[in-house]
């Protein structure tokens, strides 16, 4: 059964107030075209979760549609901090449930496995835990290990309404491969009630059947498959294209202020009707060709 859809339709399936789990990690495999379309459609009140915060989450916050972010923290590495997220936290307009990488990974894993709670050794003794006990007291608790009597911190599973996963290869049913490290994308997708797959390449189900060990996204969990090359620009997609350093620097500079963010959104998001127009605006085919990955290096 084909689930191939336009980005417009896939985004339109997400009601205001949904919990959306995003596939990006800093500057890699970020669902940028998805975030742009969410902003264009004016979807509001979102909860966003991801293991390590990334550029699509930052621009979604900048676009004003995010009420709460659940993550293990993060930055853009040498491209600096996520200004929109940090500004939202500092100004109190964004509720941040901040964990660590492993505690997010375990929360997604617990969601994926249908566990009611998962024990973890992280967070103990830290101000992260103290703050969570204020911001999200219903998500953390202590349990006695019935086998040893030790006390253990346990975390509640995360069960997002929808996971939006940017991949390299998918078929029309949504069976998909992720090349390179998967960070927590497999757990996020399997924890969620459904998945939206944004894929660089759409392949036949016969191709999926030819290397079934690689299928980390099961099609039966997926509601929409959007075939959209360069949908992660300006972030990197391993074995497809490199990150666009100049554009990331441009965004980094613009997003330092609310005004700059607004100008960026006006130009690149509201000023383009869709992803195709966005790609034309940032330089079109000749610019994108310069980002294409070297097949041996993968970037």
């Amino acid at each position, binding site marked *: 059964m084909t689930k191939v859809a336009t980005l417009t339709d896939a985004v339109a399936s997400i009601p205001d107030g949904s919990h959306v789990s995003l596939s990006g990690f800093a500057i890699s495999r970020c669902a940028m075209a998805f975030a742009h379309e969410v902003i264009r459609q004016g979807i509001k009140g979102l909860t966003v979760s991801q293991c390590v915060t990334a550029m699509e989450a930052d621009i979604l916050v900048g676009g004003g549609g995010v009420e709460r972010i659940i993550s293990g923290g993060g930055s853009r590495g040498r491209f600096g901090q996520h200004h929109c997220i940090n500004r939202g936290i500092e100004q109190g307009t964004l509720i941040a449930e901040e964990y660590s990488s492993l505690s997010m990974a375990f929360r997604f894993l617990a969601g994926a496995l249908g566990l009611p709670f998962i024990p973890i050794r992280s967070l103990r003794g830290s101000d992260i835990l103290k703050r969570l006990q204020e911001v999200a007291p219903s998500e953390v608790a202590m349990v006695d290990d019935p086998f040893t009597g030790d006390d253990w911190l346990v975390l509640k599973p995360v069960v997002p309404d929808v996971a939006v996963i940017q991949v390299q290869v998918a078929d029309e049913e949504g069976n998909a491969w992720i090349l390179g490290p998967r960070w927590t994308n*497999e757990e996020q997708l399997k924890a969620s009630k459904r998945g939206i797959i944004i894929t660089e390449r759409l392949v036949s189900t016969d191709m999926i059947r030819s290397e079934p060990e690689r299928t980390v996204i099961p099609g039966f969990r997926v509601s929409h498959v959007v075939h959209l090359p360069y949908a992660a620009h300006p972030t990197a997609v391993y074995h497809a294209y490199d990150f666009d350093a100049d554009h990331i620097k441009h965004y980094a500079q613009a997003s330092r202020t609310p005004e700059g963010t607004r100008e960026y959104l006006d130009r690149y998001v509201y000023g383009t009707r869709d992803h195709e127009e966005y790609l034309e605006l940032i330089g079109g085919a000749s610019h994108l060709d310069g980002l294409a990955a070297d097949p041996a290096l993968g970037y």
Partner: protein
Amino acid sequence: MTAEFEYTPLELMAAAGARELRDGEIVAVGLGLPVVVSFLAKRTHAPNITLLFELGVVDPEPVDTAVGLADPRIWYRAKILSSFVDMLGTVLHKGLVDVGFLGGLEIDAYGNLNTTLLGDPKGKYRHFTGSGGANDIASYARRTITIIRHEARKLNEAVAFVTSPGYLRGGEEREAAGLAGGPSRVITDKAIFDFDPESRRMRLVSIHPGITQEEVLANMNFQPIVPDAVPTTEPPTSEQVRLIREEIDPDGMYAG
């Protein structure tokens, strides 16, 4: 032994860090100087260390300088590309990471690290990166090594926010919180510290060549334990410097 060649403070720090790694150990690495430290150890006395990057990368052989862990340049020729659950779950949480590298906005007298915010979290403050895997690594790597610039604003009696716990307020507090391992070394561009086994307060181990004890202490916002005689940090060897400049970090992005 005297070093009759030029080296930078970062090269000295890299060599000092590399000396902390023993062959065969499993090392959780972040980006930046720890990458140089780890590859330096691997190419000299510790060829069988295993390098883990939290997102799911084991033992890569990068040929280009990366801008972060999310940059595919750092994944090149990895032996494993997997996931956070695999790295931080089945290796770190399982208790198999020997050494973790950490950094931060500030560290305090008991090795607690802050990568989350500066200012007063109850009032006006600036938010930064948060934890990532740092809290996890700090919670149960067998030992952690922090590399940080030697500036008073980064070396405080207590941090504004404990992102990654060290010895908390000292003594047995860390164990009481249910945490294993703990900070073993802090390497700055002026000195190396460890932690007093009783009080768990930071203690001066060695001072880098050309730096005075006064310079070390004047640029700290707390008083570390200072033994009667503090030796000079061993400088890098010429071979170490050559490896860093020619093979590990030819662009000087990390240790330049």
